């Protein structure tokens, strides 16, 4: 793990020192050692701030999409994990980021942890998380401490990950991981799928009733790029209501889901960003499962592939 961290720092240092990039995006420690946050490094001597651990869940591709780079024409170095790289590939497929202005450092990733699972084990605030091999130690502000296995607190999508290795990178750091063979897994859906229509509806209604329309899910989504033109906000046409109630919130989330269809690899950034813990993964993962079963399509696997909804086959076996 630390060797990967060193390799990231080295790659960042080289990219900055050679003038290849204006700034480099990686992860650094947040306000406590229990958090990793995106870091924007401008000088080679600052690269020691960069870290790599299973806390580094942020999908940094978000910071490449339209209107995010500052200044807009910046040349940017960026770290991507396996799932992150698929969102980058999706943007590249549609020509939405300029490959020439990027320096992509790919990191094979064995999974990141779901901090919400750790938080749920304590009533106090978790302020420190350490990793030693497969063992995780979490400590709270008042000094309470617990140990558990890394596998128990990984994000559910990380178990059986179909693309642990970056699908696109200018430089790969760390050892590549074995790719899983066979059909991709879409975990966490069985319970939902087993519900009848009314129960699904009730589940979604409960989930969306708490939505506060903060747009964190949309803005953190690396492949949701309309930004100030977002139809969810537009008043001309006024298609999505601005009232915050269950019905309008539901439509709002559906619109987000359908508008990223074909680009969304279920990286889960929206789910983790949601301040009210709406299970957004459910919708997106279910959609991706349907897409896979429908056309055998998975988003962001190959830069040269066409996005599924921007192409067609005359012999698609669909509908009547």
């Amino acid at each position: 793990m630390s060797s990967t961290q060193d390799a990231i720092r080295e790659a960042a240092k080289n990219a900055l020192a050679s003038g290849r990039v204006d700034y480099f995006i990686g992860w650094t420690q947040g306000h406590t050692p229990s958090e990793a946050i995106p870091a924007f490094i401008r000088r080679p001597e600052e690269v020691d701030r960069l870290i790599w651990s299973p806390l580094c869940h942020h999908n940094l591709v978000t910071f490449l999409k339209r209107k995010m780079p500052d200044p807009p024409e910046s040349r940017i170095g960026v770290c991507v994990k396996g799932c992150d790289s698929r969102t980058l590939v999706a943007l590249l497929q549609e020509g939405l980021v300029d490959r020439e202005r990027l320096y992509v450092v790919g990191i094979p990733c064995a999974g990141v942890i779901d901090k919400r699972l750790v938080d749920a084990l304590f009533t106090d605030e978790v302020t420190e998380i350490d990793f030693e091999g497969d063992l995780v130690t979490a400590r709270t502000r008042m000094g309470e401490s617990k140990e558990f296995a890394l596998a128990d607190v990984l994000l559910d999508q990380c178990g059986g990950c179909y693309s642990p290795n970056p699908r696109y990178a200018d430089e790969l750091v760390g050892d590549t991981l074995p790719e899983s063979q066979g059909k991709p897994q879409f975990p966490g859906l069985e319970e939902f799928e087993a519900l009848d229509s009314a129960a699904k509806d009730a589940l979604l209604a409960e989930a969306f009733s708490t939505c506060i329309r903060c747009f964190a899910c949309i803005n953190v989504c690396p492949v949701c790029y309309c930004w100030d033109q977002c139809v969810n906000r537009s008043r001309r046409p006024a298609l999505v209501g601005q009232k915050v109630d269950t019905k309008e919130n539901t439509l709002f989330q559906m619109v987000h889901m359908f508008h990223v269809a074909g680009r969304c690899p279920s990286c889960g950034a929206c789910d983790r960003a949601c301040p009210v813990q709406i299970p957004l993964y459910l919708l997106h993962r279910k959609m991706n499962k349907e897409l896979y079963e429908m056309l055998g399509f998975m988003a962001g696997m190959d830069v040269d592939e066409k996005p599924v909804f921007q192409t067609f086959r005359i012999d698609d076996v669909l509908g009547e």
Partner: protein
Amino acid sequence: MTAQTETRTRPVKVIAIVCNWCSYAGADGAGTARLKQPYNFRVLRVPCTGRIDPLLALKAFQKGADGVLISGCHPGDCHYSEGNYYARRKFELLDRMLPHLGVESQRFKYTWVSASEAARWQSVITEFVGHVQELGPREGRAL
């Protein structure tokens, strides 16, 4: 009659989003030929099914439609050559997702009706509205 049975029996509202070149002409033909059709659907004409965003169907459901039918030119016959091929992929996904979003699958349908198929339009719309009427009005749902 109690309020509940009243809502069960009220006529359903169906929105048909059709393309200008084939299905609208087909529906128009059905009207001109005085073929008997249900009265409780509304037709929205768009240039091409390729233009229809799933959002339009979702919004129709959200604002009180009980069923949404989308119809365009037969694959291969699109006025713009290929719009309906794109539409086919989009609506297949929507069709597969709606049952998971609290909309029964019989309430949504996408199909193809050409300008000359007035009789087909009649049977498609009659059958579709019939299915939706069997399910009854949608009320008290999240979407």
